[in-house]
């Protein structure tokens, strides 16, 4: 065996890779740990200084040769360094992998340097960060050229060139501008790549002369400065010609190549193109390339502890040891609730046999699914959720049955029975809206309740689950919209060629004057209907998920009378026009239902043909109101700019206001401040490693105590309403302090250095009306759903109930 031949090659020295390598070292297996960066644990070492690293999920035991517990970044890194040395892990830093070929027993790994290694088995633990893009010009690796910025405070009184005008580059430039001369290089003509908040801040710094920028500029090379000058010379091609900037430092923030491409080039397949998709893996973390294993964040396990456990387990599996996964204890506890099941294996088998929806899942996927789910045994008559609740869990009936009582818009009631083997709750999951019915447990009812996140992950990664779920969901949606009295045969007839269509914001579902192609049932998002009036598009109405559009043309057998566009990312179900007409002919109740809806809509349209309503709706939709469930709007004709809303919010939330009253757009006395919209499909929930962001029954999206402070939600929020702050405490001011006008800020005390994400929680647990609304002296601030605001501004149902409206 030569030096470059190993039993196991582990790629990526993050928590998963280190844990695997340490286990291999402990078992005395020949191994190599390849890391593209210059040291192990690269991602964590780039966390901000002194950051408190969390060990979520706290219930999961750690099983690894390496140790890990929540603590300061520095301590953890030091422990790992020490342990890597102690176990004599064969770490090769600075070794980026370019290609992998071969099969089990004979893999050939080619490094970026051209060197090759061979290994019998390969463990991919490369995480999601990807390989950082370099400048790719002469001198791009000189000392003083860096691709990351850990602590902006480190540099003072330097001349720094920042390359890259994405969020990372702009944020670095802003942070450095405080104490340095900063030149920001943008290769485009405009700063269109960064968030609007960053853009505005950048522009104000540029106007103040604190940051210089170069646009349409490309880096030519970086060289050493002359002896009596600054250490580096940055040379770039600007529209005005070649420019040389002597500087101390070049920081390039050019993003990273997503790891998926690299992984696919190794022959691993992903089930679909979704950005969140993870490769399909066996129970032993083996991919569809035999001998190639995938663990850690890339396999869908983003937390440090999970990754370390998998690193350990994968080495055991490669050795042929059937170790119990670390989560066995947890699963056992959950599954033992099912009567007649005594082992996890039996439980998983039972679930697979009873629930056809999950039959196609691998055991690993089912285990993961069950880990995020809860088995619940219910008493007869127990209410699982009520109509109007916000809860996005998904339920599968394992035993017994569940009754769903739905109520239509006009008050007609319907009841469905969900027998064992079926599921429910998919409508709330898909639409992100309130429950349309009440679910009540029947006799001997056992349910599996699955969180929104794991259900969505399943839908994204397993197409067969998505297909079977859609089949049932489509049928239920049709039944829900057109009435449950329709005979089964007609229902089948309608559903048979129903098409599921996706629309981005602004996409047209159908246009005024078109031939009617069918009835559109909106199952996610929302749409607006508009008509052309004197050459201008005038908005007539707003239709949220759960309702339908397009019935006018079918009922009257004419062309489309309005144009319908998606107001937020929308999914609609298209029922063929011919089939709908045929069913209408046969069923009086469906006919009556569509007819009355048609007349109702006609009435509102005629009433709304005013431009003012249209302009206001357009404005509100342009600022994210369409996807909101509860948005703060301020009537600027009443707002006395006292900022009492912000003060009250800060008082109630540790001294930090979660809303910015003055920021945000204004149109015709309607002001949309920077405050959480509690979106139907919250962007902040998209990528939360500890799954700390939830929606409560009442609808508020809140961040739980297990936030690890990673900042993903802050970056994902398009409305900039999430802040990263140190945990703090605030004392209530005494009357004496109020009279004396004591400084509010002085009463805030930071209790720890850990930064966590905070956002509006609609004053959950404080009062039924959010304090921003409650403490508005003139009643200018209001929180409500977009429907309420739209009906308000159209003068429908203008009532004056206390502050918060459903």
């Amino acid at each position, binding site marked *: 065996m030569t030096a470059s031949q190993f039993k196991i090659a582990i790629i990526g020295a993050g928590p998963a890779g280190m844990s695997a390598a340490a286990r291999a070292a402990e078992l005395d297996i020949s191994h190599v740990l390849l890391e593209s960066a210059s040291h192990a644990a690269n991602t964590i070492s780039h966390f901000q200084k002194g950051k408190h690293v969390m060990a979520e999920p706290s219930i999961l035991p750690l099983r690894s040769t390496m140790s890990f517990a929540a603590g300061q970044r520095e301590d953890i890194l030091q422990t790992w360094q020490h342990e890597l040395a102690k176990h004599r892990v064969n770490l090769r830093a600075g070794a980026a992998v370019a290609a992998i070929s071969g099969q089990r027993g004979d893999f050939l790994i080619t490094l970026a340097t051209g060197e090759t290694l061979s290994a019998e088995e390969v463990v991919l633990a490369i995480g999601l960060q990807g390989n950082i893009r370099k400048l790719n010009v002469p001198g791009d690796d000189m000392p003083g050229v860096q691709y990351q910025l850990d602590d902006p405070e480190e540099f003072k009184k330097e001349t720094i060139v920042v390359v890259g005008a994405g969020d990372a580059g702009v944020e670095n430039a802003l942070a450095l501008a405080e104490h340095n001369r900063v030149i920001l290089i943008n290769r485009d003509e405009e700063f269109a790549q960064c968030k609007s908040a960053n853009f505005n801040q950048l522009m104000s710094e540029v106007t103040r002369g604190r940051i210089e920028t170069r646009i349409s500029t490309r880096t030519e090379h970086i060289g050493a400065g002359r002896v009596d000058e600054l250490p580096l010379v940055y040379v770039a091609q600007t529209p005005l010609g070649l420019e040389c900037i002597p500087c101390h430092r070049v920081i390039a923030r050019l993003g990273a190549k997503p790891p998926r491409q690299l992984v696919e080039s190794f022959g691993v397949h992903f089930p679909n193109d979704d950005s969140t998709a993870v490769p399909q893996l066996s129970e032993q973390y083996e991919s569809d390339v035999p001998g190639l294993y995938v663990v850690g964040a890339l396999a869908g396990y983003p937390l440090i502890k999970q990754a370390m456990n998998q690193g350990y387990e994968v080495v055991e599996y490669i050795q042929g040891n059937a170790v119990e996964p670390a989560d066995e204890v947890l699963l056992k506890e959950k599954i033992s609730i099912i009567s007649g099941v005594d082992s996890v294996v039996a439980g998983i088998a039972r679930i697979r046999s009873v629930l056809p929806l999950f039959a196609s899942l691998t055991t690993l996927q089912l285990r993961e699914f069950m880990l995020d789910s809860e088995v619940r045994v219910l008493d007869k008559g127990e209410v699982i959720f009520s109509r109007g609740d916000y809860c996005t869990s998904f339920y599968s009936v394992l035993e017994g049955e569940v009754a769903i009582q739905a109520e239509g818009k006009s008050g007609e009631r319907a009841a469905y029975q969900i027998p064992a083997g079926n599921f429910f709750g998919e409508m709330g999951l898909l639409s992100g809206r309130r429950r349309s019915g009440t679910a009540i447990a029947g006799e001997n009812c056992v349910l599996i309740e699955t969180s929104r996140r794991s259900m969505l992950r399943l839908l994204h990664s397993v197409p067969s689950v998505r297909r079977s779920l859609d089949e049932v969901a489509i049928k239920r949606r049709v039944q829900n919209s057109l009435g449950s009295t329709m005979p089964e045969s007609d229902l089948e007839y309608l559903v048979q060629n129903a098409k599921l269509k996706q629309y981005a914001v602004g996409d047209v579902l159908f246009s005024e004057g078109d031939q009617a192609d069918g009835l559109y049932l909106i199952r996610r998002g929302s749409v607006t209907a508009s008509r052309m009036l004197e050459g201008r598009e005038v908005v007539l109405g707003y239709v949220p998920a759960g309702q339908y559009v397009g019935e006018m043309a079918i009922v009257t057998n004419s062309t489309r009378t309005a144009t319908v566009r998606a107001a937020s990312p929308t999914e609609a179900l298209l029922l063929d026009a011919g089939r709908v007409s045929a069913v209408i002919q046969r069923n009086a109740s469906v006919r009556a239902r569509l007819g009355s809806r048609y007349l109702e809509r006609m009435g509102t349209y005629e009433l709304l043909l005013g431009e003012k309503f249209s302009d206001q709706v357009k404005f509100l939709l342009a600022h994210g109101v369409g996807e909101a469930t509860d948005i703060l709007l301020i009537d600027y004709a009443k707002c006395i700019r006292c900022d009492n809303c912000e003060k009250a919010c800060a008082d109630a939330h540790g001294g930090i206001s979660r809303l910015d009253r*003055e920021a945000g757009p204004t149109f015709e*006395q309607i002001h949309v401040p920077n405050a959480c919209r509690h979106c139907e499909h919250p962007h902040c929930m998209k990528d939360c490693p500890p799954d700390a962001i939830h929606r409560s029954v009442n609808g508020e999206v809140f961040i739980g105590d297990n936030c690890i402070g990673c900042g993903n939600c802050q970056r994902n929020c398009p409305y900039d309403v999430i802040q990263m702050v140190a945990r703090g405490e605030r004392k209530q001011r005494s009357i004496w302090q109020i009279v004396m006008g004591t400084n509010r800020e002085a009463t805030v005390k930071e209790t720890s250095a850990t930064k966590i994400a905070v956002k509006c929680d609609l004053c959950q647990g404080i009062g039924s009306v959010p304090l921003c609304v409650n403490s508005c002296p003139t009643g200018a601030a209001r929180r409500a759903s977009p429907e309420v605001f739209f009906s308000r501004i159209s003068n429908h149902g203008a009532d004056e109930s206390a502050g918060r409206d459903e």
Partner: protein
Amino acid sequence: MKAFQPYGLLGYKQFRYLKLFALLVSLAIMSYLVLPVESGHYGGTWLGYVLGILSALIVLLLLWYGVTKRRTPRVRTRRMSRKKDRQSTSIKPIATLQGWLSSHVYLGASLIVLATLHSGFHFGLNVHTLSYVLMLIVIASGFYGTYVYLHVPQLITRNAGEESPDDLRLKIIELDERARLHALGLPDEINEIVYQARTSTHMGGSLWQQLRGYQRDCPTQSAVSRLLKLGPKYIMNEQPKLMRELYSVLLRKEKLVLRARQEIMLRARMQVWLYLHAPMAVALLAALTAHVVAILFFW
């Protein structure tokens, strides 16, 4: 945007506090007219005491608004599980601040009648009449405050357009810089004008300047008019394009400066009365205490 919320400060909850006001005032007037008194109306009669005590309580309640406004409900430790927890979110606040303010306005107004009747129209140079006068000052400033609260906000919005005050300031700085650069290529006379416009244009300043909302001989405005006059002199020989651009920059700046001043003026007008209202209210409390003590011990 009327329908956004149909009633404002005064119409809160279908004019709930207007009704209370009407009730209080009419009861007081009726009692005053109907109830028999032996030696004429004054504070010492049975009715006088009732009205006096009622008025004093109202004054205290009105003062308490100042405290309520600055205090938010105490927050209990929040541990919210993912499970249903409906009870914890159903605590209704006793009143919204809007309700407080609406009642503040109407109760304050009712004092004019209640306190006047309480005095039985006996005025003199003493601490009692001092309290009465102070009260009237507070109420009058409050009326002005109500007026500006109802009318000024929409003027501010309309004036500001889509820009926040910070945006305005930034844009003005930017235009100043551009004007400076343009003027560099032009004669000294013009540079001097631009320099004046850049360094001596004031927005805001002392309270009086804020309230006036204009600057006498504003350098920016005079720069625009002087440039227009100087135009024919330079436009031929000097760089005509630069002159034109400079003129347009200054014109734009003038517009923004006027808007910024307007904004400052409106905001100042909306807030200035509080500097009279609040101290006078405290003075009233002191005078009222003296009035009550005087009656209890020396009458």
